[in-house]
């Protein structure tokens, strides 16, 4: 399970995760539950149907399958699988029950989504091996994850007996087993780190297994661009400023005189450096807070060009270098 605050790159990290695991020669299933087709866009394929489909191959012969979840289809699956009620779906649809079940009913939608994922986890091939070595879910955001995963407990409480009760309990057993881990994606920014801390607390209180913290879009990697003892104060005025303007002029960037092209670079470039060092400093503070969680932590650098397919493989490689969490 991969969760994270909105905008932290949850889907990207989940995809890199699936890829990193597949590179070890295994078969992974990447499940999307939010209906955004983010996986298809990341892997640069056409829209994914409600069907497990191979979307990438790792170097070691591993495979990544993807499934874009559709609650309505999952409901029909569910009715068919557990109650052999293929045609009843139509009747339910006619009275609006399907719409109800997949959009409004207390947690039914989440029950269907987690149920389907657990089914994939437990599925075996004819030879008795697990169909997938790992199932990675691009789960709802941190603010909703505990409720999402805990929904089966709630439903088991609501439906005190009967098939829903049993199914909900079975799903909960998988989710709470040591084979499941909830990984949290964060940025080295105040709000995402705060939300991650809250999320970890909530998951623990609900007895759900917390995995690793995956820190995305770290810009500290760029700190190597400036000399380690760089001090902007040297250049803000006087001779330092002049010398810097001259250095720019030496590099062919225009005149170093006051108001010359090279001189005009001094202020904006120093401002950029100040912003950068400030950012590196706050990242260091946030990193310390993340370290205080006491959890396994991985970092991914910010990709200047944004995440494309090549970037995705880069992130998967970074994850492999740091050791893929189990």
């Amino acid at each position, binding site marked *: 399970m991969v969760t994270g605050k909105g905008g932290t790159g949850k889907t990207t990290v989940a995809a890199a995760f699936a890829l990193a695991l597949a590179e070890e020669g295994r078969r992974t299933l990447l499940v999307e539950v939010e209906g955004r087709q983010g996986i298809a866009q990341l892997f640069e394929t056409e829209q994914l149907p409600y069907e497990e489909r191979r979307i990438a191959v790792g170097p070691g012969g591993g495979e990544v399958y993807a499934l874009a979840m559709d609650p309505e289809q999952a409901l029909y699956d569910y009715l068919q699988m557990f109650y052999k009620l293929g045609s009843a779906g139509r009747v339910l649809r006619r009275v609006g029950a399907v719409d*109800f079940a997949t959009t409004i009913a207390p947690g039914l939608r989440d029950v269907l989504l987690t149920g389907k994922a657990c089914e994939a986890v437990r599925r075996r091939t004819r030879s008795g091996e697990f169909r997938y070595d790992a199932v990675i879910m691009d789960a709802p955001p941190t603010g909703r994850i505990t409720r999402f995963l805990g929904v089966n407990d*709630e439903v088991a*409480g609501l439906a005190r007996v009967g098939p829903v009760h049993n199914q909900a309990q079975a799903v909960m057993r998988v989710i709470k087993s040591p084979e499941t881990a909830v990984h949290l994606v964060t940025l080295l920014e105040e709000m995402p780190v705060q939300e991650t801390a809250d999320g970890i607390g909530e998951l623990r209180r609900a007895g759900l297994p917390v995995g690793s913290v995956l820190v995305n879009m770290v810009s500290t990697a760029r700190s190597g661009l400036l000399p380690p003892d760089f001090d902007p104060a040297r250049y803000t005025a006087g001779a330092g400023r002049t010398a810097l303007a*001259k250095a720019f002029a030496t590099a062919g960037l225009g005149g170093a*005189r006051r108001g010359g092209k090279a001189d005009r670079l001094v202020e904006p*470039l120093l401002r*950029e450096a100040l912003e950068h060092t400030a950012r590196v400093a706050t990242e260091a503070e946030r990193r310390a807070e993340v370290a205080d969680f006491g959890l396994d932590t991985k970092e991914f650098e910010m990709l200047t060009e944004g995440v494309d397919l090549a970037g995705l493989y880069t992130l998967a490689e970074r994850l492999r270098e740091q050791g893929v969490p189990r």
Partner: protein
Amino acid sequence: MTLKQPPVLEMDPLIDDPETRIVVCCGSGGVGKTTSAAALGVRAAERGRKVVVLTIDPARRLAQSMGLTELDNTPRRVAGIDESLGGELHAMMLDMKRTFDEIVEAHADPERARAILDNPFYQSLSAGFAGTQEYMAMEKLGQLRGQEVWDLIVVDTPPSRSALDFLDAPNRLGSFLDGRLIRVLSAPARAGGRAGMRFVNLGMSGLSAVTGVLGKVLGTGLLKDVQTFAGAMDSMFGGFRQRAEATYRLLQAPGTAFVVVAAPERDALREAAYFVERLAADRMPLAGLVLNRVHGSGADGLGAERALAAAELLQEPADTSRAPADSGASGTEPDPPRTGGPAGKDGPTRTADTTRTADQERTADQERTADTTRTDPAVVEADAAGLLRLHAERMRVIARERRARDRFTALHPQVPVAEVPALPGDVHDLTGLREVGECLADQSPADPPPSDRSSSAAPTRPPTR
């Protein structure tokens, strides 16, 4: 570079206009929606309007900055706002369950209300599963608007998985509570099925098929809870759908302005484009797009490629390419402490050193406090190269953000855009919100060339070359 610029989203005229009564901020998660909503609220209040900001789930410190310490459903006046123009800012956090409970209490007699509030099915529904949050936000918006107390209501929408949930929620929940299913469900609780037949027109066998299926799937215990709930709700929620539709119409009214918020990234802008299309399809009035955390540069005339080339030129003496020619003198230069003197330096720098004497006298005071490495050409050039590399990175980020924005603009050239520059650090106080509001309103091209300012302030000096 010379791609057609989108029209500018003029924020002040929008929030100043007394006709503007509702501003809805929507967008995908993590793009600064709540911050934008709060900043607009602060700005509108300080420009003289009586504003209430309805937030759904603000970051803790942002909430504290507006004096919101707990979830409660009443707007509270925000302290620290400049009210000299007659404006006020109030803020509230939505308590979903409380809003739902209030509706029940307002529309049912106490006994029936209790029956509903105690129903386990209701408790789960109201505690916030998919859809309810959106619905309750719209319900609260309708209430606030109905009070006629506020000049302007700024709404921060829930971090929905998609725009669809947000716009569809009122109708969906409305049609459920007012619809056929609930009548089927509540039928046994009322007239033993005959009422259900009347509404649903399924015939007796169809009806029992539905309840049969539901019973089998849900288990009879849960089905009974649902049926009791539906029965209790049925009488009082006859007008539920009407309320939902009224809110929907309110959103379409001319006094409403939707502001789509995004970050200058591909994914966020893709969602934003989707929002724009969806709002148009539902004939919702779109004011424009707010693009948060846009990077800029005061030196954007210097592109990434050229900056990198210049950095390489400056670093050459420290590189192996030049070392053999200098007979090892520069061999020590790559060391981190950078003790290298002018020995390995080339002509122009040394000439510059000698011509600086006049300047050095003028700034002797500042010089005295500095260490000796300050004007060491090797250090300066390494620093200059570092600055240029950093700038090249910045320019790449800017180029990527522009591509993302241009893509959006190409699809929706008519949508006005307001850009907010990336501010260092998070916004978590009124000063920060004011600053964001300032940036939102001031859409003049950022960073005027500093040359005019600095040349007039600086002492005149002879050209150094």
